[in-house]
């Protein structure tokens, strides 16, 4: 018997990351074109990459959603119809939108399915009902909403409901922060967020007759980790679980997709989770770059323990060493190096479906066969082949 599970929706910041997310088990991916999204510094997709990415995902039964979730100005909207035509031609599965002008443009020109972005901060049943009347089919709820509230919204509207399950979080209500606009001249709601909430601030408190100064990273949020709440998501009938992180690494895209896909796959087969498995999955999630984890507002509204009051940007228990570009069976792996490693190092290869394998670097060579003392990021090297390794596997090393 197969048990129902939500869709796992992974970020695809580039074509390569799309392939990694798909191969590591995502049911759907979301990505941005060169405009209209909220990640202007991300690689994003050219039209040609988008065509290739959609073909790659669809051929493996994976859905593709395209973000158009900037708050667009009139001049931006002028360019949208042409892009929409391309999206229709490519048969993408939905667009993710936050601005009513964009929703209206999409629905008046195409029959594309519209998902409401979390950027619109939909927080309650009445809000969901309004957006439903505006034509959206799915709502990505604000990250301030609990799973139980999401359940009520779903029951009241019968809309598809998507919630964030993992990744970085805005401290502000999404779409309600314009710090970058006024301090950096970059529109945070058109992709220019400068992450001012991650800065350390010196705070002068106004007391009755004095000022008191304290320093703190008071606006920085811990990262969301919802794996322990998967039973609650499933029980509430949440349709899609979204992983944040289009700007993040291949290691992140691969690991998070693999772990959550394995967990959901386990539930689909057995109808329950085992605590030992849960510990293993949590352990894997700690191996990607992250700030301290929190369950945010998934269970109860986020409190003091959700603030990441630290200087160190992110914990790196593991670093990604590279991506397999070629697996020459019995001979070597060609690895696109992301961070340095040396002969003698023990690396970990992450197969798509099977457990992690250790790989001893008994040789390290350039492509012309010259022995190297150390790999250099931005180069391709040969290392020993290991059984089961495939193109696009991630290779990592304990930091």
């Amino acid at each position, binding site marked *: 018997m197969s048990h129902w599970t939500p869709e796992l929706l992974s970020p695809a910041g580039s074509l390569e990351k799309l392939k990694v997310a798909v191969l590591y088990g995502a049911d759907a991916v979301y990505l941005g074109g060169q405009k209209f999204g909220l990640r202007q510094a991300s690689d994003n997709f050219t039209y*040609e990459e988008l065509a290739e990415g959609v073909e790659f995902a669809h051929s493996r039964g994976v859905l593709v959603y395209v973000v158009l979730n900037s708050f667009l100005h009139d001049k931006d909207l002028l360019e949208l119809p042409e892009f929409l035509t391309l999206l229709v031609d490519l048969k993408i599965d939905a667009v993710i939108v936050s601005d009513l002008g964009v929703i209206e443009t999409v629905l008046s020109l195409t029959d594309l399915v519209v998902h409401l972005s979390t950027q619109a901060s939909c927080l*309650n049943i009445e809000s969901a009902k309004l957006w439903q009347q505006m034509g959206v089919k799915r709502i990505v709820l604000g990250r301030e909403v609990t799973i139980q509230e999401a359940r*009520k919204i779903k029951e009241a509207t019968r809309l598809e409901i998507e919630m964030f399950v993992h990744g970085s979080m805005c401290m502000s209500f999404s779409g309600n*922060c*314009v710090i970058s606009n006024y301090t950096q001249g970059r529109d945070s709601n058109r992709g*220019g967020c400068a992450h001012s909430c991650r800065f350390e601030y010196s705070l002068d408190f106004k007391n009755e007759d004095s000022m008191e100064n304290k320093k703190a990273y008071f606006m920085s949020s811990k990262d969301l980790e919802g794996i322990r709440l998967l039973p609650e998501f499933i029980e509430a009938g949440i349709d899609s679980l979204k992983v944040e992180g289009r700007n993040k690494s291949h290691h992140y895209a691969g690991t998070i997709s693999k772990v959550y896909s394995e967990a959901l796959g386990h539930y689909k087969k057995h109808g329950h989770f085992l605590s030992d498995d849960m510990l293993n999955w949590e352990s894997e999630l700690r191996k990607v770059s992250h700030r301290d984890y929190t369950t945010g507002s998934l269970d109860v509204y986020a409190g003091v323990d959700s603030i990441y009051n630290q200087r160190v940007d992110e914990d790196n228990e593991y670093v990604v060493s590279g991506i397999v570009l070629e697996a020459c069976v019995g001979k070597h792996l060609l690895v696109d190096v992301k961070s340095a490693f040396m002969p003698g190092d023990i690396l970990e290869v992450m197969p798509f479906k099977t457990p992690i394998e250790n790989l001893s670097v008994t040789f390290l060579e350039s492509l012309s066969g010259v022995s190297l003392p150390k790999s250099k990021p931005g*180069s391709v090297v040969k290392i020993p082949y290991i059984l089961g390794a495939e193109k696009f596997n991630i290779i990592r090393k304990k930091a």
Partner: protein
Amino acid sequence: MNHSQTLVTYVRNIAELNFLAENHNPQVKIELILGTSLLSRFFDNSEHELIELLRKARQMNFSVTLEWDVLNQEDRFLKTIQLIEKLPMHDFFAIRVQDPGAVSFIKEKYPWLKIHLILENGNHNLIGLKKWSEFLGPQLDRLVLSNELSKELLADYSKALSIPIEILTFGRILLFYSPRKLLSPVEKKAVHDQTIEAFGTSEESPHSGFPLIENLHGTFMFNVKDLYLLDQLQALNEMGIHFLRVDLRFDDSFNKFSKTILELFAGTITEPEMSLRQNNPRPLIKGFYNINKSDVLFAKLKNKRTQRLDDFYIGEIVDVERDQQLALLVKSTHWDLSQLPEVKMITPEGKEKILQFTWVKSSLGESVKSVEQNDLVLVPYVNGVTVKTQVYLNPKT
């Protein structure tokens, strides 16, 4: 001051109400915004105090609107609407709402109550504004627009929309709104739900002294400079923008500036800028009123030359061994290399290079005739080519 314009301002207590009643010129149209702590971000009145203020303001013949600008998750939203249901809503001229949930609720439960729709976050296009207007129909009485809109856009919108427009003309600029309580964990002395005020400065930002407030609804950050458009009243009037909001709720501004503001709107003074600039705790700016160029830096955030461009795309150089070879990762579909005598390469710096396929090998050193997507092949070295160089068919050949 043109008397077709209305001063829209907040009143928090009886003393402020009395001051306005005693000092305003009856020819000047004033609209008062009242609120209560459960509905409004920055009011701390109880429900009882709100009702008392409302009663007195109505006795004084002021036009009074109710502010409901908090954003609420479902469980909190339910508590909020319980309060709304207890208020004498017929006594308000209109309700000011931002949360689409609040909009939907008022539309359904109070179809006779005028809505002043707060669209200060985003909503920077006419298509969206028209859709909001169409959705709310005659119940929509006013659009409260964003301060990120330039004067040209405000003029265009005013002309294109049949609904009156309101903008903020003097007061703090809200930058950030979080439902989380962020100051009390640092201060560590706070009483539950007590309002805490602070100023924040970061070495990583060129600006200092961001005003901060934590209250019942979470944490709010404001800009280090306040908005000042009161020297633009004539221009705004010519644009057809007749509802001008002045926010005197912070920094003792009501006591310091309300008289000057009333005189300005009455036309007894024409230029209050010096007085306001001297006495306001922060510098005054026009924000994006003259021009909004907050998207111009985007082009600099990434190197367009490292992006694939068109149908002629073959792949990317992923490794360079000086004077020996380049490693080409094929990223597009099948290519018969024997049909491609040469290809064009564009380096990350934008330089064009030509590569002649005098030989193509696999990583095992075997000669390769054709390649598929995601294959890695070794090709002759070309001086000046670096990793991330993009490889294209040369249309000239």
